[in-house]
């Protein structure tokens, strides 16, 4: 039993060896936080549906390196986002910027809630006008 436990623990420990980007890239905790936030919001285009933070394909590693370089150079988050969008399109950002093209993405959820609300209100109003016990709703 004890042996099994040791085995299990060592297997768990081994998996950390495969973790991406062990250790910190920046000494400055503020820069490190910015770096981690940025890389978690960039789509890995080679392996879509993963961020470059979670992926270890070469392109993701290259982009992490580029982003680290740009932070080092003192570029702003907007400049870094622009760098990515110019090369890979708006699709590269998990948090699309609020621009003309992406406005519909940002507004659609609210629009859907409003439309759904209206539909719901209509149904409820209609149901309330029915005589109690009549569930058919056919006569409208």
């Amino acid at each position, binding site marked *: 039993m004890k042996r099994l436990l040791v085995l299990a623990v060592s297997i768990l420990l081994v998996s950390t060896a495969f973790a991406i980007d062990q250790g910190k890239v920046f000494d400055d905790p503020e820069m490190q936080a910015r770096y981690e936030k940025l890389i978690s919001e960039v789509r890995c*285009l*080679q392996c*879509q549906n993963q961020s470059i933070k979670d992926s270890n394909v*070469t*392109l993701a590693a*290259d*982009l992490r390196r*580029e982003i680290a370089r740009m932070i080092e150079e003192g570029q702003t988050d907007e400049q870094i986002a622009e760098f990515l*969008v*110019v*090369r*890979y*399109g708006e*699709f590269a950002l998990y948090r699309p910027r609020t621009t003309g093209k992406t406005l519909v993405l940002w507004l659609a959820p609210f629009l859907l809630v409003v439309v759904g609300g209206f539909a719901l209100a209509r149904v409820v109003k209609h149901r309330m006008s029915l005589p109690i016990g009549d569930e058919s*709703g056919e006569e*409208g």
Partner: protein
Amino acid sequence: MNRFVWPLVAVLALLVFLVMGLRHGDPRALPSPFIGKPAPEFELPTLNNPEVSIGTKTLAGDYALVNVWATWCVMCRAEHPFLLELAANKTIPIYGINWRDSRPEAIRWLNDLGDPYLASAYDEDGRVGIDWGVYGAPETFLVDPEGTVIYKHLGPLDPVIWQREFAPRIAGGGPGQ
């Protein structure tokens, strides 16, 4: 019956979008933000000779293909015979960007399989690949004589794609031969 009409319409609309999405083809193929824009500037040593460099200037003056390839890229092997065919027919000048590869292995690949490229740039650390928005080799860019990117294809080239997408774009005043 009336109460079913609108939900039905909504479901049908969703179905139409679903079918459109499925027919869209390769979901990995994204519209390149470079179409209609000048080809990204680059300057790299050639694969065969680190002393010689090629870059954006090399492309100027003629329609040209810029093909991003690597020896680790399985589909690059698949498209290679067609690139050789294009080169043999002198259809269009082809330049390679050898992306994130090992120089000896890439040279061996060209020696073994044939070299369709006028020259290949050696992009060891992937910097130029990033500037060109490369995210999956093989990728092929069509650049016009003014140095503007006019088309990009993701995935292996073949005669069908060539006839459908590339040939019509270079038909008007295309390459000499």
